[in-house]
């Protein structure tokens, strides 16, 4: 984005390097972009809340919210307005300052991720050379907010939830970080845009199909991201049946809505990260990144729109998968959660990193092996998808039901 602003200043007839107002323009645009990004996060989080309820309802043979607006689409606005107008209660025994501050820590940790998260070929706030490292670092700020809210609430439910959440997030940082090292290894850069450029538009060019260890790393990352986002089956911090609502039990009104905003906004973050690291990001078919760079005028504009759409579609698919998982799996126990992390994901992620490092040496000496492996894995994935679709159709037909997705909205 800095380049974009520099170009703008040049367009006004000044040299950004020597013009005295350059820094002020930077600050003004920083404010503008953060406004846009936070609104994007808030609105997408709201829409996901509606989508999740509709999808959950469908999967449970219900209808879901369908009264406010077409197909109930405006439900999230109604809910948000209601939460905004609700009284902001602070328990008498709570630590006043910490209690008030905690939701903002969560919001900050969540919103900061968007700085390094790409939206398309050109749309990114800052393409940092430590992008992934930065994202991993600021995500950890959410834990601070959670612990803060749990501790300051002075309620045992909140504290239990917060402690569980902290244990969970800190544990799963390790496999998540290790799994993310694999695309970094393969691309040779930590910049999110650089990692996407190292991949291609077609599935066999994605990092997920680079080698079996990279495929495993994708699943490790996805599971860890679920756990870090407190999503089912790792929603122990919010386990309704045990902890009322976990760390946000004592919150109400607008502060409460921040927690949920972060939870649903995180769906986009984790999905976009998975798409960036493993699924080829915004790469447009038949338009390699170099040619995209060279385009100008309307052609560049349409190519940009195409890359936004491709990125958004891939991301939304993973958002759907996360919701789908939530309504499929039951919650796991605390010991199972820890077991899974330390006995399965952590060793597997270490092995994967080592394997990829070795595999890169093999591919360097014999490139054909690498290409064969990519096609093999992409083909296997295609077969798996076909089998899965057949399985779903079989489940549908076996009970004598018909495919009916459109009625009773």
């Amino acid at each position, binding site marked *: 984005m800095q380049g974009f602003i520099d170009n703008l200043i040049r367009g006004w007839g000044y040299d950004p390097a020597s013009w005295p107002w350059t820094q002020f323009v930077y600050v003004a645009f920083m404010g503008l972009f953060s406004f846009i990004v936070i609104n994007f996060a808030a609105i997408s989080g709201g829409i996901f809340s509606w989508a999740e309820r509709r999808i959950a309802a*469908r*999967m449970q*043979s219900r209808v879901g919210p369908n009264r406010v607006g077409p197909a109930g689409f405006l439900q999230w606005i109604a809910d948000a307005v209601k939460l905004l107008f609700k009284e902001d209660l602070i328990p008498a025994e709570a630590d006043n300052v910490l209690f008030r501050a905690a939701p903002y820590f969560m919001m900050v940790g969540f919103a900061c991720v968007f700085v390094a998260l790409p939206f398309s070929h050109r749309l990114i706030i800052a393409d940092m050379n430590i992008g992934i490292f930065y994202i991993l670092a600021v995500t950890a700020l959410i834990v601070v907010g959670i612990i803060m809210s749990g501790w300051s609430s002075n309620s045992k439910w909140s504290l239990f939830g917060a402690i569980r959440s902290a244990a969970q997030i800190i544990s799963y940082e390790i496999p998540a970080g290790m799994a993310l090292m694999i695309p970094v290894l393969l691309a040779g850069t930590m910049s999110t845009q650089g990692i996407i450029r190292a991949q291609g538009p077609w599935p066999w060019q994605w990092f997920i199909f680079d080698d079996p260890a990279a495929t495993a790393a994708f699943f490790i990352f996805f599971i860890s991201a679920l756990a870090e986002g407190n999503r089912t089956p790792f929603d122990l911090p919010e386990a309704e049946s045990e902890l009322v609502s976990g760390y946000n039990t004592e919150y109400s009104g607008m502060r409460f809505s921040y927690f949920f905003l972060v939870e649903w906004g995180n769906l986009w973050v984790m999905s976009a990260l998975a798409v960036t690291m493993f699924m080829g990001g915004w790469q447009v078919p038949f338009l390699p990144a170099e040619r995209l760079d060279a385009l100008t005028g309307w052609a560049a504009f349409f190519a940009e729109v195409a890359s936004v759409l491709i990125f958004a579609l891939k991301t939304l698919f993973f958002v759907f998968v996360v919701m789908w*998982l939530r*309504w499929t*799996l039951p919650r796991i126990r605390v010991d199972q959660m820890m077991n899974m992390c330390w006995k*399965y994901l952590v060793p597997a992620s270490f092995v994967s990193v080592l394997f990829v490092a070795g595999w890169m040496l093999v591919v360097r000496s014999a490139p054909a092996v690498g290409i064969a492996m990519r096609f093999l894995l992409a083909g296997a994935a295609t077969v798996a998808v076909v089998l899965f679709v057949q399985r*779903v*159709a079989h489940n*549908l037909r076996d009970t004598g039901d018909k495919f009916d997705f459109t009625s009773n909205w």
Partner: protein
Amino acid sequence: MAETQIPPPQSPGAFGAYVKNVRDTAKSFWEGMSVTLSYMFRKPITSQYPDRMSVPVSETIPARYRGFLEVDMDICTACQACERACPISVINIDIIKGDGKTTPKLRMERFDIDIGKCMYCGLCVEPCPTGAIQHTREFEGAVMHFNNLTLRFVPDVLQPVVAYKPPKGAEAFPRQPLGEITRKLVKAWDAPPPPFPSKEEAAKADHGKPKAAGLDVAAMGRQLAARALQVKEDKPKLQKVLEEAMAGTDCGDCGYPDCFGYSNAIAQGKDTSTEKCAPGGADSKAMLETILVSLKTGIVPGAADPKAEAPPPVPGAAPEPEKPKGPPLSQTLSKDELYKVVLDAMAGTDCGDCEYPDCDGYTRGIVYEGQTDLGRCAPGGEDTRVKLYEIMLGTKPPAK
């Protein structure tokens, strides 16, 4: 002691178990997610109540469901068996009695069922001789105004409904399709509540009317007192007179549900207060006091010209002297003639409260079978009892 060796279970080895766990996880994800996805593409089972139902819900519930009560006034005999059966006085029936020649013998001025109070026990349905009162399958009772919860089966007090006279020996009675009447009444529930009167309207409504008519409260009180004295013994009529002294708004400020409740309580002697009618204010209080005092003393008080005001003053209240009588009708008439006379004395609703199937049965019991209990006609009440004693024994009935 011989130790029993339990062989250790065959384990696939640590690494095997590890791989098996991973495989099981993948498999259960595969199965579980295919099931949930397949459900996502099915039609939901839930139906959208209330506006997207293909048929009204009340038509889908079983026929014996106990919903709102319904009375078909066309076959109601005015026996009041349901009113007596109701354990919580949900049903209110007002009867006007006639001589049976110039006016119908029984007419119903009011037949109200307070659905808000009804507990759907079904006890009123049991004794109904014609099946006029029934439970429908209607159940949706959201109303715009609380008063709307009372189902009024006689829509207009000024047009009383004539009681049904069941044909002799009839087993079945023609009834309107169950639910139609109540549904019609319930539809009125959607109507908006009565508008709140504006200040000017309220001012007019409060005192404007009596003043415009030039109402002389004292004179009206005396008039009412004179009428009350006439009907001193007839509590329902006395109640009507008393109700005339009230504002008639059914506001409920007196602590009774309506003016009827308050006036009835005074008529029955259960309440001696006169100041509870808030809309009537001082006017009502004065009139009620006049009436009560005159009832106690037996004379209309403070009348400027009592002769002009109250034509038949005292004698109505005086006990009638035993006039010499011949033998009772039961000894002078033939059995068949007696049968007619006795049947005529009964309410004629065939309610069955007398433990005979109908009035005919009870009459036969008295005339031909030597039934000596003459106080069984519940709808006829005291009137019928007095008449029956008069006819059969030639005496006044003993006090209950």
